């Protein structure tokens, strides 16, 4: 009766090149733990499995987290892999979660996968939760 819907959106690489130059500005020496993507073609940054990062990150491109990230994150596209864990303040255009996300989240497009866990305060324009996904906390629509 209820069809399971699996429209995983792989649109992470669509609009990066247009907006890369204005997002990456002159923040290079402002924060000690800042990783940035620059240049015309933004490749995704990856926090791999087993890697734990604490601090702030900014990127006009996409970041894939398969390891652990704690801190403030400001990106165009965030993908949290099934083993990934993100804790902190996240601002992004689109977020796709297969792992665990907790904290304060603000984004336009939020996709929560079937095995994902999201906990905290969320602000979004559009939300999709696949069956089985867990979400706790306060939700607000922009």
């Amino acid at each position: 009766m209820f069809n399971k819907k699996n429209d995983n959106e792989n649109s992470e690489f669509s609009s990066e090149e247009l907006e890369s130059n204005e997002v990456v500005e002159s923040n290079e020496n402002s924060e000690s733990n800042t990783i940035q993507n620059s240049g015309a073609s933004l490749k995704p940054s990856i926090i791999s499995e087993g890697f734990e990062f604490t601090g702030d990150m900014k990127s006009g491109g996409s970041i894939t987290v398969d390891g652990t990230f704690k801190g403030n994150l400001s990106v165009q596209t965030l993908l949290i892999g099934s083993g990934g864990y993100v804790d902190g303040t996240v601002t992004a255009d689109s977020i796709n979660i297969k792992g665990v996300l907790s904290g304060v989240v603000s984004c336009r497009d939020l996709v929560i996968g079937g095995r994902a866990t999201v906990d905290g305060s969320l602000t979004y324009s559009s939300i999709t939760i696949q069956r089985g996904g867990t979400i706790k906390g306060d939700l607000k629509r922009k």
Partner: protein
Amino acid sequence: MADNNQNGCLTVGEGVKLTGNFVVPDIASISGTIEGEITAREILVGSTGILKGKVTADVVDVRGEIHDNLTANKSLFIRSTGKVIGTVQYTEIEIEKGGDLQGNLLKSANGHSAS
């Protein structure tokens, strides 16, 4: 929308407005407006349906609107036209793109395993 066997079912057509407390043993299919408290095994809210108050069911399928308080003991489906605002307690949830969910979310501790 309800099954052929209408025993224990409640169907509220579009334009119908009801106020009060309702206990429905089986399926409540709502295309009108209900204000108050409704308990059912399964609640289907059509695209024109609006529920306001305390809503409790095993399975809730929303194409319309639910306000205030919603408890889905098994599954909660919010379709692309669906809108749920208020305190929501669920065991399993699915939201289609375009669906609207605002408020406080709680996941029930007594987790039924997904079928």
